C-alpha cells in the first residue's frame, strides 16, 4: 500500500516535470519566434602591460565596433610585470584573453609550449606585404613561421636634451660623441652650496633592479661596439662584452659617477627628472614626448640620436618590436585576426603614436601630420640614414641574463674601487661574462665560438 502510494507520488512528480519542461520549451519557442533574428555578439578581450595604451585600444575598438556592431571589446591594462605574470598563468590554463601584447621574452615560451599558432596565410602575407621592414618581419619569425603582428617599437631610444639649459650653458648643439657628452654634462651639472648634486648632466639608469637596467646599459655597450651576447655561426651564443669594448662601456658609467661626477644615483632620475628639469640629458624611448606633453608642455627640448662612441664610430639604435598576438586557445580567432589587421593599419598606426607617444613599427605611415605638431618625433619615426640598428635576441633565458647582469651592474656603477683601477674593473666585467655564459649553458644555448 505504501509502495503504491509512493509510485503514485513519483508518477505525479514526473508528470509535473514533463508538464513544466513542455511549457518551458513552448514558452521559449514562442519568445524566440516573437523576437527578430539577431547575430550573436562576439566579445574580444585584450590585455596589455602598458596602461597608457588603454585609451588607444579603446578608441580603435570603438571604431571597429562601428563597422562590426556584433563585436564588442573588454580591455584590461596593468603594469608590464603584472601582465607578464598574469599571461604566464592564464594562457597555458586556457583562461587568457583573445589578444595580448607582450615582449618576446614571454611569447617565445608560448611558441615553445604550443600556445601560439603560427600566423594564418592571410596574416602572414599581410605582414610580408612591405608595410614593415625586413628586420621587423625577421623579428616576428621563429623557425620559418611568423607569429603575431608588430604593434609598436618597444625601444628605439634617442637622446633628449634640455634646450634651455644648453643655451644657458653656451652649448649650441647636442653632443655627437660620448666625449662631447661628458664635456657638455660637466657644464650642465649643478650642485648646491654644500656640494650636493641638484641637477645631473646626464641621467643614466644606475639603481633599482630588473632587465631594464641592462637594456639601458646596452645603449652604451653597443655604441662601444660590444654586446651582451653574440650568435655563433653554429646558431649558439656567448657573451660579447668581456673585451676592450665591454670594459670601456663599464668604465664610462663608473667615470660618469665617480670621476666626472655628472650623475649620481641619489638625485632624481629618468623621465621624471627630465620633465622636471632636474637633468639635462636622457636616453629614452618616444613615450617620454607624451609625458612631457602631459606634465610640462612648456619644456624647451630636442631629441637627437644617441651619440657615437667616437667620431669614427657608427650611430647605433636598439630595435625591439613589440608584437600583439592572438591566443592559441582563443575561441574567437577569426574575429581576433580581423581586428588585428584593423588595429595595425596605417590610420591606426598614426593614431597610436599621436595618442601614446609609442612609435608604430609600420614603415609606410605618413608622419607629416604628427611631425608638424611635434617635430621631436622626427628622430624616432625617420632616423638618420647612417644609423646602425641592433635587435633584441629572442631567447628563453634573455630576461634572466639581463636581470642578473643588472644586479652586478648596479653594484659596479657605484663601486669607487673600480674608478682608476682597470684590473679590478676587468675582473668585474669578467664576472658578469661568466654569469652570462653560465645562463646560456644552462639553457643549452652556449658555444664558445
Amino acid at each position, binding site marked *: 500500500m505504501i509502495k503504491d502510494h509512493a509510485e503514485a507520488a513519483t508518477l505525479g512528480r514526473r508528470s509535473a516535470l514533463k508538464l513544466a519542461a513542455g511549457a518551458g520549451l513552448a514558452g521559449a519557442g514562442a519568445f524566440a519566434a516573437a523576437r527578430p533574428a539577431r547575430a550573436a555578439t562576439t566579445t574580444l578581450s585584450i590585455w596589455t602591460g602598458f596602461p597608457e595604451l588603454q585609451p588607444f585600444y579603446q578608441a580603435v575598438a570603438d571604431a571597429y565596433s562601428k563597422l562590426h556592431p556584433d563585436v564588442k571589446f573588454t580591455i584590461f591594462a596593468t603594469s608590464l610585470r603584472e601582465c607578464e605574470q598574469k599571461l604566464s598563468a592564464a594562457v*597555458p590554463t586556457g583562461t587568457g584573453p583573445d589578444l595580448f601584447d607582450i615582449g618576446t621574452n614571454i611569447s617565445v615560451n608560448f611558441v615553445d609550449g604550443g600556445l601560439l599558432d603560427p600566423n594564418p596565410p592571410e596574416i602572414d602575407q599581410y605582414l610580408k606585404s612591405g608595410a614593415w621592414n625586413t628586420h621587423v618581419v625577421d623579428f616576428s619569425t621563429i623557425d620559418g613561421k611568423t607569429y603575431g603582428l608588430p604593434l609598436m617599437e618597444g625601444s628605439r631610444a634617442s637622446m633628449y636634451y634640455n634646450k634651455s639649459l644648453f643655451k644657458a650653458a653656451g652649448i649650441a648643439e647636442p653632443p655627437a660623441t660620448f666625449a662631447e657628452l661628458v664635456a657638455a654634462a660637466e657644464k650642465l651639472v649643478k650642485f648646491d652650496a654644500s656640494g650636493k648634486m641638484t641637477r645631473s648632466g646626464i641621467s643614466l639608469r644606475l639603481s633599482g633592479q630588473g632587465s631594464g637596467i641592462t637594456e639601458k646599459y646596452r645603449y652604451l655597450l653597443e655604441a662601444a661596439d660590444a654586446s651582451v651576447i653574440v650568435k655563433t655561426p653554429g646558431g649558439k651564443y656567448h657573451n660579447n662584452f668581456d673585451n676592450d669594448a665591454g670594459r670601456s662601456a663599464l668604465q664610462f658609467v663608473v667615470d660618469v659617477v665617480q670621476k666626472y661626477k655628472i650623475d649620481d644615483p641619489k638625485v632624481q632620475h*629618468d623621465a621624471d627628472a627630465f620633465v622636471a628639469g632636474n637633468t639635462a640629458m636622457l636616453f629614452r624611448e618616444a613615450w617620454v614626448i607624451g609625458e612631457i606633453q602631459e606634465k610640462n608642455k612648456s619644456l624647451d627640448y630636442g631629441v637627437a640620436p644617441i651619440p657615437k662612441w667616437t667620431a669614427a664610430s657608427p650611430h647605433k639604435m636598439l630595435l625591439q618590436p613589440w608584437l600583439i598576438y592572438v591566443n592559441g586557445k582563443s575561441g574567437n580567432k577569426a574575429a581576433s585576426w580581423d581586428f588585428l589587421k584593423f588595429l595595425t593599419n596605417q590610420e591606426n598606426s598614426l593614431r597610436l603614436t599621436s595618442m601614446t607617444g609609442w612609435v608604430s613599427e609600420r614603415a609606410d605611415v605618413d608622419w607629416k601630420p604628427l611631425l608638424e605638431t611635434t617635430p621631436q618625433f622626427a628622430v624616432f619615426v625617420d632616423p638618420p640614414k647612417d644609423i646602425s640598428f641592433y635587435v633584441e635576441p629572442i631567447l628563453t633565458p634573455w630576461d634572466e641574463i639581463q636581470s642578473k647582469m643588472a644586479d652586478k651592474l648596479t653594484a659596479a656603477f657605484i663601486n669607487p674601487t673600480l674608478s682608476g683601477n682597470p684590473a679590478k674593473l676587468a675582473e668585474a666585467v669578467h664576472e658578469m661574462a661568466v654569469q652570462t655564459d653560465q645562463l646560456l649553458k644552462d639553457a643549452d644555448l652556449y658555444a664558445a665560438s
Partner: protein
Amino acid sequence: MSAGYSSAGQRARWWLPAAVDWRITLFCYMTLAPVLALFAYVRVYPIAWSVVLSFYRWNLIRPQKPFIGFTNYLNLLADDNFLLALKNTAIYSLATVGLSTVLALPLAVFLARKSRLSAFYQTVYFLPVITPMVPMAIAWKWIYDYNYGILNYALSLFGIGAVPWLTDPRIALWALIIMGVWKVLGYNLILFLVGIRNIPESYMEAASLDGASAWQRFWRVTLPLLKPILLYVLVTATINSFNVFTQVYVMTLGSQAAPGQAVRVLVFDIYQNGFQYLKMGYASAEAVILTLIVLGFTLIQFRFARAQEE
C-alpha cells in the same frame, strides 16, 4: 578505568574521544568538514604540490616537466642570489623581530597604566598594522627620498646631512628594517598589553609590599608571566619577517629605487625565479627551504620556551 578507554572497555580512537556520544562527535566532524576541506584545498594541497614540483624542472608555460631529483636543491646551494637572499632575510628577520619586541615591551608597560590618552596611543601604534602594505611602501619610498624626503628634512633640523636611504646598498636593508619595525610594532604592543592586563593586580601589590622596585616588579613578576605571550610574539614575528616581500618589491621598482641585490630577500628571489624567469621547480625548492627554515626556528623557540618553563 584508565584514560583512553571508553566505558565499554574498548580503546578510544583519537577521532572518537572516550565518554562522548559518537553522534556528537560525528556532528562536530560533519560541521567542520567543509572548512577542513577548504583548508586542505587552499593550504595543504598547494604546499604539498610545491614539494612535489621542487623535484622537477618546470617552466611555467611548457607542459613538459622532467623529473630531476634533488638537482634544484643542489643548484640552490651554489646560487649566489639565493645565498645572498638567505643572509639578507636572516639580518632583516633578526633585526625586525628583536627591535620590534624590545621596543613594544616597555611601550606596553607604559600604556598599561591607567591614562585617559592610553586608548589614543594604542590606536596610533596599531594604525600601521591595519594599513595596506603597498600604499605604505610607496609612502615610505617618498619618506626616504634623498632630496625631498621628510626623514632627511627632519635630520637636517639637527644639522645631520642627507642620507641616501634607498640608493646606498649599505643602508637600504636598514631602511627596510625601520619600516618593518614600524609596521609590526603596534601588533606586538597590543599583544603585550593584553598579557600585562591579565596579570592579577594582587601579584603586583604583594611584590610592592615586599619592597620590590618598579624594575624588580617588571623583571621578577611581569616578564616571567608574559613568557607565553612573548613566545607567541617571537614565533609570529619570525614567520612574518621571513616572508617579507611587498615592501622590497615596491622599493626596488623604478629608477629611483633600492639596488636589487642590497635588499634581495628569500620571497623576492622566489618570486623572481618563479614568475619572472618562469623556473617554477627551482622556485618551489626555494619555497620548501624557506618553509623548513621557518619551521626550524619555530621549533627552536618552542623548545627554548619549554626548557625555561621546566
